[in-house]
């Protein structure tokens, strides 16, 4: 039956992606929910929660708050918390509840800005889309709110968009990317969303070039290109090291490979696999499209059966271990590659 999931738990939702991008920037992030969504973010989708403090709170909405549309109460609580925490900015992240009651985020932002002396941004996530959509919205809102000034370009400075634990399935992706890009000749690397600061975002126009490491960073990269003329390339700087850590068969000559991940990573891996002799490498994703990374035959997956029927035609499947449950009769080689938004598991 279409729409029924029997094996896979739901993937990371858009509000988790938005929070992931904002997490390390010193803001007061309010998830506009009754408690469960914030619990899901802090207790599951945000692996930094137990090791790195961040002011991520739930609005603690109750039925009458939703029915009466008590935005003023939410703003008052934001003001109280803001006095105690002295954040650099405030952000309100949407969930299904404000989505159902039709919260006007622009009005909410204006109301909050009138009461607070800090910038306020809102991300109209709904809980019904996937994490990359929320991360994309948060990247764009961040750049539009803070990267306002055209600064002189610093040669050798590389900005990296689309780096957060959900997109990268890793807690030290920022460090690994920095190492990789410095080795390639960069002088300085700034990863937005992980390891970077709000000041880095403010000074985004200084970058000589941006790298989009996952589809969630593409819109913000285009915005920076349009606003400041910063060029960008789309690739995962970690692809080579990732491939090294995969338990792939030694000889890939003539093999047909189905690769499941976010499309920037999948495409970067595809290039490497093809160079090693693979006959066909198809990227299949549950997540957002990314035109610069797509090739003929690539697939967008929706139903569990979509993956199972596609997999029949391949010799090697590369993807999160939970996908194995969808293809119990598969006779080829399954190569595990953790995808946090799928299973909640980080790369080892």
């Amino acid at each position: 039956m279409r729409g029924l999931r029997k094996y896979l738990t739901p993937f990371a939702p858009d509000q988790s992606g938005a929070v992931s991008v904002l997490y390390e920037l010193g803001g007061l992030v309010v998830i506009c929910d009754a408690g469960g969504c914030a619990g899901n973010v802090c207790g599951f989708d945000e692996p930094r929660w137990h090791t790195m403090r961040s002011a991520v709170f739930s609005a603690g909405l109750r039925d009458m708050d939703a029915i009466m549309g008590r935005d003023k109460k939410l703003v008052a609580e934001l003001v109280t918390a803001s006095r105690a925490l002295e954040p650099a900015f405030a952000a309100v992240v949407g969930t299904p509840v404000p989505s159902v009651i039709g919260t006007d985020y622009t009005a909410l932002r204006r109301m909050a800005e009138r009461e607070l002396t800090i910038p306020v941004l809102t991300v109209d996530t709904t809980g019904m889309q996937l994490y990359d959509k929320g991360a994309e919205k948060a990247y764009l809102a961040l750049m539009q709110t803070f990267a306002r000034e055209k600064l002189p370009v610093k040669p050798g400075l590389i900005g990296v968009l689309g780096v957060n634990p959900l997109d990268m399935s890793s807690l030290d992706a920022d460090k690994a990317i920095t190492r990789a890009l410095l080795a390639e000749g960069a002088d300085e690397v700034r990863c937005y969303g992980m390891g970077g600061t709000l000041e880095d975002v403010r000074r985004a126009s200084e970058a000589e070039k941006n790298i989009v490491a996952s589809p969630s960073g593409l819109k913000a990269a285009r915005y920076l290109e349009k606003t400041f003329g910063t060029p960008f390339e789309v690739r995962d700087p970690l692809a080579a090291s990732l491939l090294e850590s995969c338990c792939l068969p030694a000889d890939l000559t003539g093999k047909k490979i189905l690769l499941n991940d976010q499309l920037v990573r999948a495409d970067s891996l595809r290039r490497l696999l093809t160079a090693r002799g693979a006959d066909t490498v198809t990227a299949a994703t549950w997540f957002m499209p990314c035109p610069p990374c797509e090739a003929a035959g690539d697939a967008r997956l929706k139903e569990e059966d979509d993956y199972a029927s596609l997999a029949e035609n391949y010799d090697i499947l590369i993807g999160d271990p939970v996908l194995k449950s969808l293809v119990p009769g598969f006779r080829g080689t399954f190569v595990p590659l953790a995808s946090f938004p799928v299973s909640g598991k980080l790369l080892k």
Partner: protein
Amino acid sequence: MKKQAVYYTAGDIAARDIKDLPDEFVLSRHLIYSSPATLAFNSPGAEGFGVKRAGLAIAGSVMLLVAPGCCGRNTSLVSEMKAYEGRFFYLNMDETDIVTGRHLKKIPDAVREIAETTTPKPSLVMICITCTDALLGTDMERICRRAEAECGIHVRPCYMYALTREGRKPPMVHVRESLYTMLKPRKKKANAVNLLGFFAPLMDDCELYALLSSIGVRTVREISRCRDFDEFLTMAEANFNLVLNPEARRAAEVFDKDLKIPSIELTRFYEPDRIHRQYEALAAALGVTFDDGPYYEEARAAVRAFRDRFGELTFSVGECLNADAFELALALIRFGFNVAEVFGTVSEENMVYIRYLADLSPDTRIYANTEPTMIFYEPETACDVTIGKDAGFYHPECPCLPWNSDVQPYGFRGLVALMKGLTGVLEQAGKADRSPAHADGPADRSPTQATACAGATEPDATFPVAAGKGCPIVTGGEEAPSVPGNADAVPAQEGGTK
């Protein structure tokens, strides 16, 4: 301005009326910090029982979560537990579903497919819906009836409505009601009793089983010990229920109204005198006597041995544990220990303990676990050991007894297990036995000494507790116990005991 977590002392809180608590202690007046305790409450994944695990309390049941994807996301934590493998199914909603309600039409088909493709065939499909349907006003009872009629399988709703958590019928109250309304009237067995309240069993060696046995009770049923759906249905045979968690009060009302099975509510205590007094009150309510003396002595001996061994320890007590944080803190103080801090939620029910705490230890700090400034918490008071997962989180340097297992500690044996658990974590942490400074040991600050109990009566399975009288609460507090009057006896429908 120094950024620090806000706290009040027990003295500060006790001086206030429950309706005049500081804003930090009123959930609706601030944003919510996701402390471990909040997470266990808001997002019970791998531990504790939220609606998802509770809804699957009946063996052989499965759950279909009909909700936006975000609501089911962390279910993978539960799905990984052996007991829940293959028991969750999802029908993810999108914006169109919200506008048109089309997702509701898919439910019977989804139930049918689950029933036809799951082996063994499920005994029950729980349909779990969330805040979105709460706002849409979905009549899930009707949809479940339709699915049940079309698919020939039990289908019940459960409501993961975080929006209504402080309402008249919060989700955890509702889920119990939803489960127990499946029971149909049966011939009563005079020697059968249900324990309501928890979704995991009491510890196997809890004295409550033995005490009930001593008065002729031969079958004690708990939902978590029922091996299948048919055994669950036998809960309708009980003579009376013991309600061990206030969240089961509404379910007890269902038993009373629909099945004519009365209930008595008990509270979990850690003070032996309170436990003893509660058993006395229970015995009085049932028209029997309990010989709880040996258990009482065992518990007091365990406390004495622990205190003698480790001396005047200072505790930090959280609320993410199988206890009322304030009652446990008060018990520890009365045992002669110190309690530097309690991380808890102040309520009308535990205000009585806070007032006693204020008398004995007015400077004990009380922190509101959900309040935003808790993000700044840094340990300022020295403590030797923490109890509760949240207290352990705040004091990573201290030995911690999480005390939050699924299996429920209860009664005197619960206290004995607590002392054993504390001994274990202190031994593991290499904490020295009592220091010379504590050689004489601290004074026991218990208010009373219980007297030895009378001997047990002959087994008799007829108890003067009646349906239709509400759910009396028997207490172990200093305040006069509210013991049900000499209620009408329930005639034993089945003679004798097994």
